[in-house]
């Protein structure tokens, strides 16, 4: 048998696929295009073909590897247990290793991921600039002037932005309320403190109300998920090591994460930190939620975040927590298992496909007529907010813990 012609692609993992095709209808890009080459089975076949020297790593192959959302819906459907997420990440690394992607897009991506996302200081400055831009009236001016029409990508990114709330950084230690049930770590994330302060705050409040003392160690940082998805394994490993060190010393029952993408990524390496990682909904459900008492009489649809459902196999816990809120009516959202098109920075790198997937999601929301859509991942929160805003739907988009906290707060004031 000849040696495979791939250095970074995890070739052996491609051999797990026996071409049965059960993944096809679960793949969002296949649903949209009907192309075998846009399906997990087709992509794996192409990876194998490249590694075995049967096809060239041509532009069509490269494009398909980046058209993939890495949502891992195929893994939930795969009887052979193919680790598709790992495969596509390693294939992207292989593509960069061979220089098969345009240098400009590679350079831009690395710049954003390594110098902005991975850096506290730069990220803070970016968030601050955005807040100023939105509040100074510059945003209104720019949008009214149509100046952004000359740069469609920039316009897309600009429109994705919800009003950026004030930054909120988790205190080092949040004391438990009532009887102490345990001590947990809190993974705050990189974008969360800057763009989703209210979600982090609600997470800590809910954990504290449930009797957990929450530690948010200073040394932690970005989880590296976006870097790994982009095939930048080195940066991802460096970032993970930083988190292992930050959470390593503490004697914590669990490390609680409220971002599905970060949670899946922290769990992936299978090390000591991974073993302690729990999604906030999963953790509260397993621990036994203190029943929230305040009525939240809303019609709510839960949308599965891919990296919770497919990446961490968590789907029942958040729904059961929501059902514990008095007055809340939980409705099924058709196609909840399908990606909304956010997928990390996919909505910036593949705006067309992202918009097509978002359209499906928004259609489902329109038909279901909820007052609130909840989902457990920051990227999805941004994407869905934009979707309902553009469609003119009067729907709030929240993280599940925000509804839990709302119920606790209402219960207190009653």
């Amino acid at each position, binding site marked *: *048998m000849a040696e495979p012609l791939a250095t970074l692609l995890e070739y052996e993992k491609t051999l797990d696929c*026996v*071409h049965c*095709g059960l993944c096809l*209808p679960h793949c969002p890009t296949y649903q949209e295009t009907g192309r*075998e080459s846009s399906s997990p089975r087709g992509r794996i076949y192409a990876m194998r*073909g490249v590694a075995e020297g*049967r096809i060239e790593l041509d532009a069509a192959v490269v494009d398909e590897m980046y058209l993939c959302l890495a949502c891992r819906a195929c893994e939930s459907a795969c009887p*052979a*247990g193919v680790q598709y997420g790992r495969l596509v990440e390693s294939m992207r690394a292989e593509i960069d290793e061979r220089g098969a992607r345009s240098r400009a897009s590679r350079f831009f991506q690395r710049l954003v991921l390594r110098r902005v996302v991975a850096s506290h200081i730069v990220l803070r400055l970016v968030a601050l600039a955005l807040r100023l831009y939105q509040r100074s009236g510059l945003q209104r001016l720019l949008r009214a002037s149509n100046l952004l029409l000359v740069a469609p990508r920039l316009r897309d990114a600009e429109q994705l932005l919800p009003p950026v709330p004030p930054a909120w950084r988790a205190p080092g230690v949040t004391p438990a309320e009532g009887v102490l049930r345990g001590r947990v770590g809190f993974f705050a994330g990189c974008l969360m403190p800057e763009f989703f302060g209210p979600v982090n705050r609600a997470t800590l409040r809910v954990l504290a109300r449930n009797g957990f003392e929450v530690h948010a160690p200073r040394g932690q940082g970005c989880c590296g998920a976006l870097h790994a998805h982009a095939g930048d394994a080195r940066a991802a490993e460096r970032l993970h090591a930083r988190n292992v060190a930050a959470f390593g010393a503490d004697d914590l029952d669990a490390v609680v994460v409220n971002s599905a993408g970060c949670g899946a990524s922290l769990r992936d390496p299978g090390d000591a930190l991974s073993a302690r990682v729990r999604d906030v909904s999963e953790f509260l459900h397993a621990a036994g939620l203190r029943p929230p008492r305040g009525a939240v009489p809303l019609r709510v649809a839960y949308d599965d975040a891919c990296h919770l459902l497919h990446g961490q196999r968590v789907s029942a816990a958040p729904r059961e927590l929501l059902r514990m809120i008095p007055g809340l009516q939980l409705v099924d959202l058709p196609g909840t298992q399908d990606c909304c098109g956010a997928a990390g920075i996919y909505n910036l790198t593949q705006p067309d496909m992202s918009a097509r997937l978002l359209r499906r999601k928004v259609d489902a929301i329109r038909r279901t007529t909820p007052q609130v859509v909840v989902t457990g991942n920051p990227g999805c929160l941004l994407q869905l907010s934009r979707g309902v805003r553009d469609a003119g739907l009067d729907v709030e988009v929240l993280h599940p813990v925000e509804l839990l906290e709302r119920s606790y707060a209402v219960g207190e004031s009653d």
Partner: protein
Amino acid sequence: MDPRTGELVDRLRELPSVEDVLAGASEMFVYESDGLTLTRGRAAAVAFPSTTRAVCEIVRACNEFGVPFVPRGAGTGLSGGATPVDGCVVIECARMDQVLSIDAVNRTATVQPGLVNAHLTDAVSGLGLHYAPDPSSQTACTIGGNVAENSGGPHTLKYGTTSPHVLSLEVVLPDASVVQLGRRDAHAVGYDLRGVFVGSEGTLGIVTAATVRLMPDPETVCTLLASFPSLVSACEAVSTIIAAGIVASALELLDDKTIDAVEASVFAAGYPRNARAVLLVELDGTDAAVQAERARVRTVCQSHGAIEVRVARDEQEREAFWRGRKGAFGAMGRRAPDLYVHDAVVPRTRLPEVVEAITRAAEERNLRIANVFHAGDGNLHPNLSFDRRDADELARIVDMGEEILRICIEAGGVLSGEHGIGLEKRDYMHMLYTDEDLEPMRWVHEAFDPADACNPGKVIPQPRACTESNPRHRGYEKVTF
């Protein structure tokens, strides 16, 4: 790409009704096989119609250029029925995935060919109806492909294969004309050309709409799982159940190696790991009838030495039992890089000895085998694991495929239960039929497709004397890695 092909691709791209055309080298590479990776071919282009009209226009363009065309759905077929002929145009029906109409009163639905089998039941479940044929790949395979292959599935035992569920078909013939075969109201007269078309494996034309029967959901469904200390005792239990006049809707057997593969997968169903065979028995009908039959099935299984007989606690466990069974093929992926899912039928009473003979033949050839079968129908699926990069093992696999057919035919069986003949078994048709028997099939083919343009080279072998002389019929290759 030769200039003539380039011209055809340009023509296809100009057709306003055709949404997408692929022709790149790496894109054609991923279309080289369907669910059977033992056969391969290189298409010149893949065209994506979404309407009947688009299919006609693609076929017309192909005819003008004298290029053959091959219809394809989800590419889950297991006999190479959708393997491209070198230089052909693949007509990919995946985007023709709409439910065109549902008639709840007459219990029929008219659908496009690219609709996924399970999506049809999803669309009508609110009406208390379902589409009965349920191949294991039903979450992915398409109605058009099911019609082409006359697909079966576990519930074939009680409800029959695809054919009795198809009332009428809209078909684009190889000359690009559109005809209706059968009638939507099930009162067709004259020759049953609908029946000729179902199971023709894409060689007589392309289905562009199918009107199918919908079945009312039964009052009660009950699934029993019985585990046995040997495959033989499980097979004997199956024969006794049927002899006792119990009409089960499904009788499925899985051997220990299959159980291991399924239990290691995301479809782990809680099959007992200590059993040598697991038998799934499904009963449906009125509450009273199901209750009574359930007791009788339990007694029969126990009398054949069942270690344990248990009833699915709830709908969730019942679904888990079936997901495990239906994911069994893919689950074998963890055993070796490649899998050959074989398919043959024997009289049910001969199952034990045939399974033994097949297992022995696999051992003699040093091959890994796992058995799953629709035991009630005598339909065997020996799953052979291999690595196509190992030329010697590959040769033993191909030889083993032939040996399985020899064993089954000697026992009074046939070449295929539900996967079709395609390329895989075309040249074994002579094991079952004489040239004289095959002649009427050739006439039918000649009548529909005189130019031999539609999925050529599949199903019907050349008369023995001609097999080596017609290069047109060797537009595919068996794997040579």
